[in-house]
């Protein structure tokens, strides 16, 4: 399941990340922000009246804002690690 289709406030785990879907710079930043396979992740908020703005999600202990393009590159799985 993509992060974008995850229910808000339902903790999950990162299954895989399509690093090729983003620039090298962005993949580096995301890694620095704690994104890795197996990290715990949770969708928290979506900005914008129409619900088409950026996503805020918790990765590990950090809250990270990203656009749909990046959130869509993250596959998640619910349940135990």
């Amino acid at each position, binding site marked *: 399941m993509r992060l974008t289709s995850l229910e808000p406030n339902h903790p999950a785990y990162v299954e895989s990340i399509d690093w090729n879907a983003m620039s090298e710079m962005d993949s580096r930043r995301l890694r*620095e*922000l704690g994104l890795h396979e197996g990290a715990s992740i949770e969708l*928290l908020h979506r900005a914008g009246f129409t*619900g088409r703005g950026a996503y805020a999600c918790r990765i590990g*202990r950090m809250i990270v804002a990203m656009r749909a393009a990046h959130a869509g590159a993250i596959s998640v799985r619910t349940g135990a690690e």
Partner: protein
Amino acid sequence: MEHRPMIALVGNPNAGKSALFNALTGAHQKVGNYPGVTVERKLGRLALPDGRAADLIDLPGTYSLDAKSPDEQVTRNVVFGHQEGERRPDLIVIVVDAANLDNHLRFTLELIALGSPCIVALNMVDLATRDGLELDADQLSQDLGAPVIPTVAVRRRGLDDLKAAMVQGIPQHAAPLPVHSEHAAPDADELRRKAREIARRAIVAETPTRRITSQIDRVVLNPVAGPLILLALLFVIFQAVFAWSEAPIAMIEETFAALQTGVEAVLPEGFLRDLIVQGVINGVGSVVVFLPQILILFFFILMLEATGYMTRAAFLMDGLMARVGLSGRAFIPLLSSFACAIPGIMATRTISDPKDRLTTILIAPLMTCSARLPVYTLIIAAFIPSTSVWGGIGLQGLVLFALYVAGIFGAVVVAMLLRIGVIKGPGGSFLMELPKYQMPLLRDVIIGLWQRAWIFLRRAGTIIFVTTIILWLLLSFPKPPAGSDQSLVEYSAAGRIASVLEPVLRPIGFNHEIALALIPAMAAREVAVSALATANAIEESEDEDETARTLGERLQGRWSLPTALAFLAWFVFAPQCLSTIAVARRETNGWRWPLFMTAYLFALAWLGAGATYWTAVAFGL
């Protein structure tokens, strides 16, 4: 020879380096720039418990030594001792966020692997506790192989232990050069794994708590309430900028008036007295009155940053910004540009996409900075009646609001055009950490304000001081021969220069006096006001019988309403600020973009002022 040890604070962004730096050095700090780059260099003096003094530097935050941005390169170079104008640190204090250990330990391990002396400040333990985390500093120290000192920078806790550890950690003899990371770069994934492992062992207990941050976010980031709250906040800020500044502005005005009277009483009539009274006090005073407004705006910006709200604002704005080809990150620099475009342009460094960043730099001067306020307030007070329209809204305030909106609207259009034209290409991305909410620390906010005030006053004391004197001289000489029907100002050198410009400005309704004010106002917009004031003061001194009138009253008699409106429109767009152009040059590494910026803004200013003038004339105003 006495060698003062050099200690560097290094760590991830938001680890609390600056807070620790402020707590350790207090008022003993110097802010400057590294040569050739606009990276801030913050140096402070610190008294160690063994009686020695040490130099402390606050390095820009970075996530790794694999440096990409100019900020990160400075940090990297300092750590390796390669930074021009900086000694190699004798000791590195690695600042980590205790509530975010696994993330911050990765960089810590990378730094420790270099082999230079370092100690770890385990900062923000209060926030970790708030989140239900209990940490074992000894275990961490053992696993890292470096001393670990728990600290709470903002409550000044752990500082004595940290200083004691510094004394222990500074080597007696010159430390070996750090291993060059190119040769010994540890594998990134391996480091991450190790960091997580060490973090796990350091966490003794983890009780889930209801986090304050997520509760606030539920309201503040709500799709409906969030934007409304942001809008309300911006409204309050701009209200406060005007309402709160009235009293201090009046005080500053009185002070300068008293100063003028004082000097007039002491000095004999003549050249020197005129220069000081009409030139210096008058000119510098007309600029310093804006200090209160600048400080109020920066107060709010600093507060929003310190609480952690600013990044939320960026998050909320990202959708809108994306539509004009920008990123939510541009919101912070653009908001700062309402105070002054210089810190705004410097703040674009946090935007990683080069095209996003360039676009933001190019439109930053369109945000109505506080240097335009002197011009706006003078003209509005003189030409816009202080009546109410539509049931209670003040017309003067409305005009001012319209000027702000015109700038924003111009920026939106320009950004869109730039992204289709000169800076074509796919939009960048938006990736940003939203830090935990915090009670801001008044002390840090005050230090920040003091630094802003100092930068502004230094500008008033240098650029504005000098331009005012030169202008006064150009306006006063040469004197017209006896019996000439030309006025003193028209006959002067400045008057003749203005006459050259006049043909270009005449079509958009500008008169000789405006042409004259615009030349020195290239240095800084607010100089336009002091220039008008100086020119009028000189003229006024000519007609002896005339009673003293305010500058506004004098302008009323000489400018038509369309001319005044066109003058306002000109200042919405015109790039009348050399410092902004200079900063844009530094930040874009060349003259190409600042020249482009200057050209397009002047074109916009001419068209904007012209359109205003022609419309106003057509309506018979």
